[in-house]
């Protein structure tokens, strides 16, 4: 069953067009990755889905309902949650409080604060520290955990690997497998191609705000990805 259906989505920053007619589907329980070079429009795409950018109503359907352009809180209620680029941990809040903010209008579901601590034990150990005292990798865990606290049906994750060492990235992707096992659908944006190819069932490659390549990872060779990335 299709959980997210995007049709001919275009988005603008002022008079600058960032996305050109993107169509994409995510089935319930699936993990889909969006890859592409910097400036390809990946982050804009996720922000448009999460209600942070104005888009036409019909361009985005969630669970069969048109939801394009709805404000973020309404989308969180439906179970569509974004883990933003750059983690965006609230500096005035402790680790625990950052997680609790994620549950501000939580739906019922498997994710509780204890369940997040089990997934990322380090967060439980450092629960009373300011969220921004954590290392980059731990902050990324916190950002994912905060998103999970809303019990999303679809979790959008923007560039997990940003500024993180390869080993840390590997661990984060292992955690995503556990999230997937709970039945959460994932749409992951990533520059770090190798990790993503291992977890995703399907991959979309963006170039200059449009879909340049799409398919199952097994069918995508390094040459095809490279060509789609850089247009060479």
């Amino acid at each position: 069953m299709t959980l997210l259906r995007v049709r001919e989505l275009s988005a603008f920053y002022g008079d600058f067009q960032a996305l050109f007619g993107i169509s994409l589907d995510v089935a319930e329980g699936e993990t889909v990755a969006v890859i592409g070079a910097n400036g390809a429009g990946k982050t804009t795409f996720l922000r448009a889905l999460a209600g942070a950018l104005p888009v036409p109503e019909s361009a985005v359907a969630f669970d069969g309902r048109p939801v394009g352009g709805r404000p973020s809180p309404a989308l969180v209620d439906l179970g569509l949650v974004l883990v933003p680029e750059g983690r965006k941990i609230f500096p005035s809040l402790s680790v625990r409080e950052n997680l609790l903010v994620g549950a501000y209008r939580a739906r019922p579901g498997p994710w509780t604060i204890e369940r997040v601590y089990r997934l990322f034990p380090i967060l439980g150990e450092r629960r009373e520290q300011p969220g921004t005292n954590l290392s980059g990798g731990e902050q990324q865990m916190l950002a994912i955990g905060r998103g999970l606290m809303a019990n999303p049906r679809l979790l959008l994750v923007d560039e997990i690997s940003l500024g993180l060492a390869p080993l840390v990235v590997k661990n984060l992707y292992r955690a995503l497998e556990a999230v997937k096992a709970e039945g959460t659908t994932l749409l992951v944006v990533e520059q770090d191609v190798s990790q993503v190819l291992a977890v995703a069932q399907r991959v979309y490659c963006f170039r200059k705000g449009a879909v340049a390549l799409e398919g199952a990872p097994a069918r995508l060779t390094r040459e095809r990805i490279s060509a789609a990335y850089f247009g060479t």
Partner: protein
Amino acid sequence: MLDRLSLAVDEREAVGVIGPNGAGKTTALNVMAGRLRPDRGAVVFDGRDVTAMPAHARCRAGIALTHQIPHPFEAMTVFENVLVGATHGGGRTERDAYAGCLAALEQTGLAARANTRAGTLTLLERKRLELARALATRPRVLLLDEIAGGLTEPEVLALVAVIRDVRAEGVAIVWIEHIVHALRSAVDRLVAIDFGRSLMDGPPDAVMASPEVQRVYLGIEP
């Protein structure tokens, strides 16, 4: 953000800087331009320690920066935007500055738009305006922060041509860019940075071919 980064640029040299998102590239440029103060270390320009010099004074000394996200003076015309750089950064009187402004506008292909309000420009034109204003300050070194980002292929090629042209006039260049083929065609040397540190430094082809850079930058295991 930066961890004991060292980077040197010779007179008339063009250096490209690459690295993954969050590697500290923009931070490095901002430190060079005086918009950020380093906790430790120094910025030396033309043999002079300029670490304590504020941004506007560095511009007057010959270090010009173009911003990743263009900040045109929206209520002013394209010509006036360039004139700010020429009179304040370039230290000329208004009349003496006109010729330099015209040259900068022609070089960046904006002459026909001289009377347009900058707030109404397209992205490409805004990027060109960033460059034109910086050139009008008569820089000795030009710091370019992702000036080709977000442009279409033909636009990137046009911009590369302008930058090669600037370089041919003897202006040193430090250019951060993700569009690698654009960089390769315009620089003498590539520096790859990650975690605020220099990873590789050398001729563009050698740097791009190194497995280390392939892994860190593209995330593709060779």
